[in-house]
C-alpha cells in the first residue's frame, strides 16, 4: 500500500536534564508576578515602622466599627449580587418569556456604569431633597427614611455589580448538560426545586467567583461609600492618610485590605477546584428553555424590566436630563472629543498590556502546576481588592527608583537626563496592571480550563510543544476568551479614577477624571455629560463581550 515513509528530520531526541523545562516557566512566571506584586509588597513593607499611637487610637475609637461596617458592606453586596445575579441568570437561561432574548444580553448593561455614578444618581433621585421624596411629601405627607448609609450603598453596589454573577452564572446554567436537568424534571422535580437541588450546586463555582469579584470591588471602593457616608476600611485608610497626615499608618491599614482580598480569592479558588466535572465534551446538548405563559410570563418580564429600569434606565435618563439642562456648546464638543480619544486610547493600551501578562501567567500556571507558581500568581492578582490610590502610591516607589537609576545610567553615557518614568504612561499602565490583573487571570484561566489536557498531550505527541503549541493550538482556541477579557478590561480601566488621577502624565485627562472634577465640586449637572459618554463608550465593548460569551459554549 504505502512505501515506508521518509523518517522525520531528526532522530529521537537525546535525553536532556530533568529540571530544565519546568524551571524556565516557573522562573518567568515568578519574575513577572514579582514585578506586579511590588506595590503590594510595599504595603506589607510599611509594617517596618509600627505606628503604635495611631493604631491604639484607631483601635479604641473606630476600628471595630469600621471593620464591622466593611464586613456588613461585603456581606450585603455579596449576598445581594449573588441572589439577584443568580435569579436573573436562571430566569434567562431556563425559561422563554416575552423579551427574554433581549434581557439575556441587556441585563449586563449596568456594568457600564461606574459605581460612583450610579451612587450620585440614586442619591440625587431618592434622597430627602430629591424628586421622589419631595413628591411623596407633597402628596401623601410621608417622611421616608433616609437612603444614606449601609442600605443605600449596598443597594447601589448590588445594582452595579450583579452582572458579574449574572454573566458567570448564566454561562454555567446554559452549559450544564441538559441531561441532568431533564432527569430532574422526569423525576418530578421541576422549576424551582430542580433549580435549587441541581442547577445551583453545579453552577456554584461560577456563582461564587462572580460574588467574589463583586465583593472585591466593594472592598476597594472609596467614592461610593463616601457618598453614602458609610464607614469602611478603605475610607479609614484615606481618612488616616489625608486627615492625620500619616501615610505609614494608612498603608498599614491598607495592608489589611490585602487580607480581605486573600480571603475572598481563596474562597473563590476553593470552590473553583470542584469544577472538573463541568468539563463536558463539546457538542453536548445545551439546556433547552421552557416557555412560560400567563401570569408567570408577566412576572418574569416584570422582574427583568424592573431591575433594568432601576439599574440602567433610571441612571441614564437622569444623566440625560441633567446634561440637557446644562446644555451643550461648541467648545465642549472639541475638548470632549479629545477626552474621549484620550480615555479610549489609554484604556485600550492598558487592556492589551494586562491581557498579555494575564495570558503569560495563566499559561505558566497550566504548564507548571507547582504550588509556588500558583501562589505567586495569586498574590500578584490581589491588587483587585486594594484601592487604586494605594496601589498608585505603591507604584510610585519602585518607579521613581527605576527613574533615578535609568537617569544615572543615561547621564553616564551622555544621554538626556530628564526622562521621567513617573510622569509617563508607563507608571499609570503599571498601576492598572497591578489593579486589574485579577480580571485577566480569571478570564484567561476560565478559557484555558476548557481546553482538555489531552489536547496538549496530543499536540506534544505530534512533535508540537512550547511556543508552537501556544501559537498553533492554545491561542486559536483562546481567541474568544482573550477577546472577552480585553473588552472587559477596557471597560474597567476606562472607569478607573484614583490611580489615573495620581499617575497620569500632565495633559492627559480621562472621562472619569472629568466627572470627578465636577462632582467633587457638587456640580452634578456638569458631570452628567461626561458620565453619559463614559457609559456609552463602555457599552460597546460590553455588548460585544456578551455576544461572545453567549456563543462560546459550542
Amino acid at each position: 500500500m504505502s512505501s515506508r515513509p521518509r523518517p522525520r528530520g531528526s532522530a529521537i531526541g537525546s535525553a536532556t536534564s530533568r529540571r530544565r523545562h519546568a524551571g524556565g516557566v516557573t522562573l518567568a512566571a515568578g519574575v513577572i508576578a514579582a514585578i506586579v506584586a511590588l506595590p503590594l509588597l510595599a504595603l506589607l513593607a510599611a509594617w517596618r515602622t509600627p505606628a503604635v499611637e495611631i493604631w491604639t487610637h484607631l483601635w479604641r475609637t473606630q476600628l471595630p466599627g469600621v471593620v464591622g461596617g466593611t464586613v456588613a458592606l461585603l456581606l450585603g453586596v455579596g449576598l445581594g449580587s449573588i441572589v439577584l445575579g443568580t435569579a436573573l441568570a436562571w430566569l434567562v437561561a431556563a425559561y422563554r418569556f416575552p423579551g427574554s432574548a433581549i434581557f439575556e444580553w441587556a441585563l449586563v448593561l449596568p456594568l457600564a456604569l461606574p459605581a460612583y455614578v450610579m451612587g450620585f444618581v440614586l442619591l440625587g433621585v431618592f434622597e430627602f431633597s430629591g424628586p421622589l421624596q419631595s413628591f411623596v411629601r407633597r402628596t401623601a405627607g410621608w417622611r421616608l427614611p433616609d437612603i444614606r448609609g449601609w442600605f443605600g450603598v449596598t443597594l447601589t453596589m448590588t445594582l452595579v455589580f450583579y452582572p458579574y454573577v449574572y454573566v458567570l452564572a448564566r454561562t454555567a446554567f446554559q452549559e450544564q448538560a441538559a441531561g441532568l436537568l431533564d432527569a430532574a424534571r422526569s423525576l418530578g422535580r421541576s422549576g424551582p426545586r430542580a433549580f435549587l437541588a441541581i442547577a445551583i450546586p453545579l453552577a456554584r463555582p461560577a456563582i461564587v467567583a462572580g460574588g467574589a469579584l463583586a465583593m472585591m470591588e466593594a472592598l476597594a471602593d472609596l467614592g461610593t461609600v463616601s457618598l453614602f457616608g458609610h464607614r469602611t476600611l478603605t475610607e479609614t485608610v484615606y481618612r488616616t492618610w489625608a486627615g492625620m497626615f500619616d501615610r505609614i499608618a494608612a498603608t498599614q491599614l491598607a495592608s489589611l485590605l490585602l487580607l480581605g482580598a486573600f480571603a475572598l480569592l481563596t474562597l473563590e479558588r476553593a470552590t473553583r477546584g470542584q469544577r472538573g466535572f463541568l468539563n463536558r465534551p463539546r457538542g453536548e446538548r445545551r439546556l433547552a428553555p421552557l416557555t412560560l405563559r400567563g401570569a408567570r410570563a408577566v412576572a418574569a418580564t416584570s422582574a427583568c424590566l424592573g431591575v433594568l429600569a432601576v439599574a440602567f434606565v433610571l441612571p441614564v435618563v437622569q444623566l440625560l436630563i441633567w446634561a440637557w439642562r446644562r446644555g451643550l456648546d461648541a467648545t465642549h464638543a472639541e475638548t470632549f472629543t479629545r477626552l474621549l480619544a484620550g480615555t479610549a486610547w489609554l484604556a485600550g493600551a492598558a487592556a492589551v498590556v494586562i491581557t498579555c501578562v494575564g495570558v503569560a501567567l495563566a499559561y505558566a500556571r497550566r504548564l507548571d502546576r507547582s504550588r509556588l507558581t500558583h501562589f505567586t500568581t495569586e498574590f500578584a492578582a490581589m491588587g483587585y481588592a486594594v484601592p487604586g490610590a494605594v496601589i498608585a502610591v505603591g507604584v510610585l516607589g519602585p518607579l521613581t527608583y527605576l527613574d533615578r537609576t535609568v537617569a544615572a545610567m543615561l547621564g553616564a553615557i551622555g544621554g538626556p537626563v530628564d526622562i521621567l518614568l513617573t510622569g509617563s504612561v508607563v507608571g499609570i499602565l503599571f498601576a492598572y496592571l497591578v489593579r486589574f490583573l485579577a480580571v485577566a487571570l480569571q478570564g484567561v484561566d476560565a478559557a484555558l480550563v476548557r481546553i482538555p489536557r489531552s489536547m496538549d498531550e496530543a499536540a506534544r505527541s505530534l512533535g508540537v510543544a512550547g511556543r508552537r503549541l501556544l501559537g498553533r493550538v492554545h491561542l486559536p482556541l483562546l481567541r474568544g476568551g482573550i477577546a472577552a477579557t480585553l473588552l472587559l478590561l477596557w471597560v474597567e480601566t476606562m472607569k478607573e479614577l484614583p490611580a489615573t488621577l495620581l499617575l497620569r502624565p500632565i495633559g492627559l485627562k480621562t472621562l472619569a477624571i472629568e466627572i470627578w472634577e465636577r462632582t467633587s465640586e457638587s456640580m452634578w449637572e456638569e458631570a452628567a455629560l461626561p458620565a453619559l459618554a463614559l457609559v456609552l463608550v463602555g457599552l460597546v465593548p460590553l455588548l460585544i463581550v456578551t455576544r461572545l460569551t453567549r456563543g462560546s459554549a459550542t
Partner: protein
Amino acid sequence: MRGYRWLTALVIAGVACAALVSPLVAADEVVVYSARHYGQEPAFEAFTKQTGIAVRVLTGDAGPLLERLKAEGDRSPADVLLTVDAGNLWNAARAGVLSPVTSTTLASNVPAHLRDPENKWFGLTMRARTIMYNPKKVTPAELSTYEALGDPKWKGRLCLRSSGYIYNQSLVATFIKRHGEPRTEDIVKGWVANQPTIISGDTKILEAIAAGQCDVGLTNSYYLARLLAKDPNFPVALFWANQPATGTHVNVSGAGVTTHARNRASAIRFLEYLSSVEAQQMFANTSMEFPVNPKAETHPIVRGWGAFRQDDINVASAGEFQAAATRLSDRVGYK
C-alpha cells in the same frame, strides 16, 4: 524560556518609547500641580496672555498630589503646588516640598493671617465656613456661634458634613488652637448629642435645608452663592457665626513654589499675578469665593451678605492641629 524573550523585548521597547513620550520640560512655562479643579482657568489664561508664559496644569486630589511631588523629588517637573485647605498647605510645607518666597508684592497682597509665617505658601482665595439656615423655620436671633449649635434646642435639626471632610477638620483644628482640646471636645460632643444628619456634600446640605430635612447646617460660603446665582429665590440664608466673639472661621486655597522648581522666576511671577487685583477679581467672579487681596471686590451676591469679621488666627494652625482634630472627632464619635 524562549517564549518569553519576545515578551521581555516588547516590554523594554514599550518602556523606552513611553518614557520618551513623557513630558520634557520646556523653558518659558510654569507647571502647576493643582488640587483646585474649578474656577482657575480664566486666571491662568489671562496670565499666559499677559506674560506669554504657558501654564501646564495637572489636577489631582490634595493627598496623592503631594505624594507624587514627594516621590518625584528633585526630578519633579512641578514649579507650583496649588492646593485647597490651609491644612494641606501646612502639610506640604512640612514635607519640604515648598520653598520660601520673598516677594513684597505677595506680602502686600496677601494678609498675614492668610499666608505662611515662613513664606512658603500664600493664600489665594478665601472661603468662609459658616451657619446656613432655613429662614422660614429659624430667625437670626436664635443663632450665634458654632459652639451654640450644641444647644439641645437644635436636636434633630442639624445637618453636618462628615468629620473626615477636610474643611470640617480645619474648623475643629482652629477650635483647638483657640480653646484647647478639652473645650473643643465639649463643643463637638454637643454637636454629636444633637444627632446631626451627616450629608456627603455641601450643596446637598443646602438642598436638605431647603427641603426641610434639617433647619441649620455648616457649609462653605461659595456653595450657597452658586446656588443663589442659579436661583435667586433659593430658600436658604447665611448667618455669620461668632461675630461679636472670635469671628467666622475662614480657610484658604493657596499655592507655593516647589523646592526644585526649574522655572522659579516664572513661578513667582505666576503667584504674584494670581494675587493681583485682576486675577483675584476673576476668582471672585467665577467661583464666588472671597479674594484675599483686600483691594479686590467680591461678587455681588456675596457682597449682599454684608461685611463680616474673620477669625484672624493664622490659617496654618488648621494644619498644625489637624491630626489632633481628627483624633478628637473619632473620640467623641463624630462620624
